[in-house]
């Protein structure tokens, strides 16, 4: 198989496998070869599936031989390690689940397998999806394929890096406050978070249940649409899964933006991001206009409260969700003199610093005497933030903004927790409102002190359930600007 094919899109791979020009087994060997050549340097995967992947590939080839038509036939899939895949280690990037073997498969993953994907590995992530750089993983370091001295973003940084390094064509991510969109932006990928409830969370290890949403990381918008079409839809196994027909997106990709009103929020002043980033976003907005879109100034007066709201609601929900990791039924156990001591020692040894911080802040915000002052107030702020978006969408069809507060930064650059939280300033308000949003490459900026141009991401967001319009517009922008293909990952020296 040619180098061009393994580096081509999921759509192209599926087309060739479906036409029997290639077998899923051959594509899988090629993907495993890429992983063997470059993943020591990139570190995208915590587990590589090897023979397990080969078995999946043979099943796909058998289905195609049997006459089945599979929209993602033979496409190498990277699965974020907070999603269950039967018989594989599923760690959440945590020592507390370091040796846990999933006894079932997440619905979203199963639907990708049903569509013909071949899982090649489980990817690194910030522990329990809490972080924006993958540095909070207890189990490995993932590097940005465009500059190995920089982070890939997070929490879905492993999947983003795998896709960027051509070690998979589709990666699954989960996004609570920006965990798909920010690593997408950092790694020159499409990072797409659908409407809350659109894709089942069954088999996704919970962080903050009212915010968590699964979505794809890919190299093209078309691939994101194909992955979304495969994953979306009602699942009786997830009580918050939305029972509403899915409008397929891959069939409705656009090449212009005529008649589309795109809102630019007055409050999201990109000048504070520095001259180069500011110019990058100004050009992106002009390019949207050149494609026929009408730019509309909108106001999101409460968006600035997004971070404060999020850092009460998400930790509160996490403190409740992570109570299940107590050393009794699965995962790590550290013995103590009595059951209380066992719980405390297990959780002390099993959780990393960021997870402990979030559990503590959440426990505090929910504790007697503080519940109304913190948690309920944040829930009320969430109402106001969602109302601002609803009002904005009366005058526009989509909203454009930066996807992250900077390009990918160097390791250990954000040792103060709050400085890391600020990376998700632009993505969090959309998450609180449950809106579908994605990051699409919009240019390259060489960070101060950096040696390579790093990718920048434009966030596009749509009203609830308007995934088709969102992906359609992102496709028009991507095809017209071709930012993603302007530079290659810097892995040539690694592959030799």
């Amino acid at each position, binding site marked *: 198989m040619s180098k061009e094919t393994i580096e081509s899109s999921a759509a192209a791979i599926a087309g060739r496998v479906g036409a029997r020009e290639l077998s899923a087994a051959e594509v899988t060997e090629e993907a495993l070869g890429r992983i063997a050549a470059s993943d020591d340097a990139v570190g995208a995967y915590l587990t590589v599936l090897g023979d397990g992947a080969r078995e999946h590939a043979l099943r796909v080839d058998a289905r195609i031989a049997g006459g089945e038509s599979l929209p993602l036939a033979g496409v190498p899939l990277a699965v974020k390690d907070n999603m269950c895949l039967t018989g594989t280690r599923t760690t959440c990037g945590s020592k507390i689940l370091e040796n846990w073997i999933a006894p079932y498969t997440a619905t979203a993953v199963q639907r990708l397998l049903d569509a013909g994907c071949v899982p090649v590995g489980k990817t690194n992530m910030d522990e329990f999806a809490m972080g924006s750089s993958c540095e909070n993983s207890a189990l490995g370091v993932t590097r940005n394929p465009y500059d190995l001295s920089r982070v890939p973003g997070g929490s879905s940084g492993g999947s983003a890096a795998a896709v960027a390094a051509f070690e998979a064509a589709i990666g699954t991510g989960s996004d609570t406050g920006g965990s798909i969109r920010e690593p997408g932006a950092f790694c020159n990928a499409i990072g797409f978070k659908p409407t*809350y*409830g659109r894709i089942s969370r069954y088999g996704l290890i919970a962080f903050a249940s009212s915010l968590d949403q699964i979505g794809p990381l890919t190299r093209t918008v078309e691939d994101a649409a194909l992955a979304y079409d495969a994953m979306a839809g009602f699942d009786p196994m997830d009580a918050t899964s939305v029972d509403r027909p899915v409008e397929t997106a891959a069939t409705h990709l656009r090449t212009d933006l005529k008649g589309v009103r795109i809102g630019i929020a007055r409050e999201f002043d990109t000048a504070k991001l520095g001259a180069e980033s500011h110019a990058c976003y100004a050009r992106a907005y002009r390019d949207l206009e050149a494609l026929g879109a009408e730019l509309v100034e909108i106001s999101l007066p409460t968006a600035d409260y997004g971070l404060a709201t999020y850092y*009460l609601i998400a930790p509160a929900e996490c403190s409740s969700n992570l109570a299940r990791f107590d050393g*009794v039924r699965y995962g790590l156990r550290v013995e103590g003199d009595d*059951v209380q001591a066992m719980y405390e020692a297990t*959780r*002390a040894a099993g959780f990393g610093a960021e997870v402990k911080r979030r559990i503590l802040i959440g426990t505090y915000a929910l504790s007697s005497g503080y519940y109304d002052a*913190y948690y309920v107030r944040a829930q009320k702020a969430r109402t*106001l933030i969602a109302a601002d978006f609803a009002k904005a969408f009366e005058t526009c069809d989509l909203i454009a903004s930066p996807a992250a507060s900077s390009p990918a930064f160097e390791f250990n650059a954000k040792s103060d927790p709050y400085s890391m939280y600020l990376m998700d300033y632009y993505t969090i308000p959309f998450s609180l409102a449950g809106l579908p949003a994605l990051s699409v490459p919009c240019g390259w900026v060489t960070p101060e002190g950096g040696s390579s141009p790093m990718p920048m991401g434009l966030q596009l967001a749509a009203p*609830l359930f308007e995934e088709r319009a969102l992906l359609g517009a992102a496709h028009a922008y991507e095809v017209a600007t071709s930012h993603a293909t302007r530079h290659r990952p810097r892995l040539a020296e690694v592959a030799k």
Partner: protein
Amino acid sequence: MASDSIDVRYVAKLARIALTDEEVERFGAQLGDLLEHVRALEKLDTGSVAATAQVIASRNVERGDDVRGCLDRETVLEQAPQRQGAFFRVPRIIAAE
């Protein structure tokens, strides 16, 4: 909004996490810093605003009371940190008289 400083030891007890003295100090400072940031919410008038728990309207979901397949006991117990026969083994919970 409350302005009390966070009693990290007490909260850690509620959260069932043992902390070292160093962690108490470090997390105390970091959480105090975060609480300063979230106090920005005091500026929002939320008096007559309803709280949002879920952004997408949801309803209670029930299923029929019928027997269905589930994970078999051996599969589940294989993941147990300690087991005894068909049970999870845990430290004594009720103290001896």
